[in-house]
């Protein structure tokens, strides 16, 4: 919708649907089940707000918030949480002051070159969490 100077005041963007989040989560959950890993799987939109969440039976209680935090971090910073963890481990400890969970296991969800959300997994080793997240994220590739 242009204003009287002809400038566009609004634009459109692709957003993640619940159905999309459900399918991404199901693919990740299938991978977790195949591996016998008890994890939480969180899917958030581009603003970092939760769209879908599951906690497998007997997953450690701490993982719910951490999975959501990893998903939010990946979505809002538009990069894998591994990248932030590596920066911090490499000496940029100041990054820990960000409101983020910069721990491996969160991946951005990308559609048509745009970040439309994030997926975060927690419950097993961080590298294993990321394998589960990858199984979900790759559905969009």
């Amino acid at each position, binding site marked *: 919708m242009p204003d009287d100077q002809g400038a566009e005041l609004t634009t459109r963007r692709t957003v993640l649907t619940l159905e999309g989040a459900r399918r991404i989560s199901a693919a990740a959950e299938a991978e977790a089940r195949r591996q016998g890993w008890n994890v939480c799987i969180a899917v958030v939109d581009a603003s970092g*707000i939760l769209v*879908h969440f*599951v906690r497998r*039976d007997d997953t450690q209680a701490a993982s719910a918030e951490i999975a959501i935090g990893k998903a939010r971090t990946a979505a809002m910073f538009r990069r894998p949480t591994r990248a932030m963890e590596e920066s911090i481990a490499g000496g940029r400890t100041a990054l820990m002051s960000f409101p983020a969970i910069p721990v491996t296991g969160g991946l951005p969800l990308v559609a048509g070159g745009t970040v439309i959300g994030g997926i975060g997994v927690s419950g097993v080793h961080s590298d294993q969490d990321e394998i589960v997240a990858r199984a979900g994220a790759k559905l969009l590739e």
Partner: protein
Amino acid sequence: MTGLYGALAMAGAVISLFVASEASAQLADKKVLTLEGAKMIAAAADAEARKNNWNVVIAIVDDAGNLIYYQRADDTQYASNDIAIEKARSAAKFRRSTKVMEDVVAGGRHVLMTFPGVVPVQGGLPLMAGGKVVGAIGVSGVASHQDEIVAQAGVGVLK
């Protein structure tokens, strides 16, 4: 030899019986909600919401108030994210419907709002199995009494 092994086995059985009864004095078993159960409850609630064209968040927590399952329908207001979870938590931890709490507050006991983590607003219901609270469902997105209709559809799965 057989006699000795037999006696040992018997002694072992006696010891393990003893250990088991000792342990049972300190430990208890309880029913817990599974992810599969939570998904079925959410699916029933989701069907009710769809039928009415209501965009809502549906949250299911365990008896401790920890999230098991969550879904947000497309185009649901953002505020409902936290509210649905908090309604579910309030219903689980206080073991009663959030409507009951809302009525108490409306009746004049405003002090209930000082309880940590309580959201005494209609739309949260405890999930019962065998007379025990195993968790709760919280719904937010439309009018509170409509939220509760959606939650009720989920609760019906356990009946």
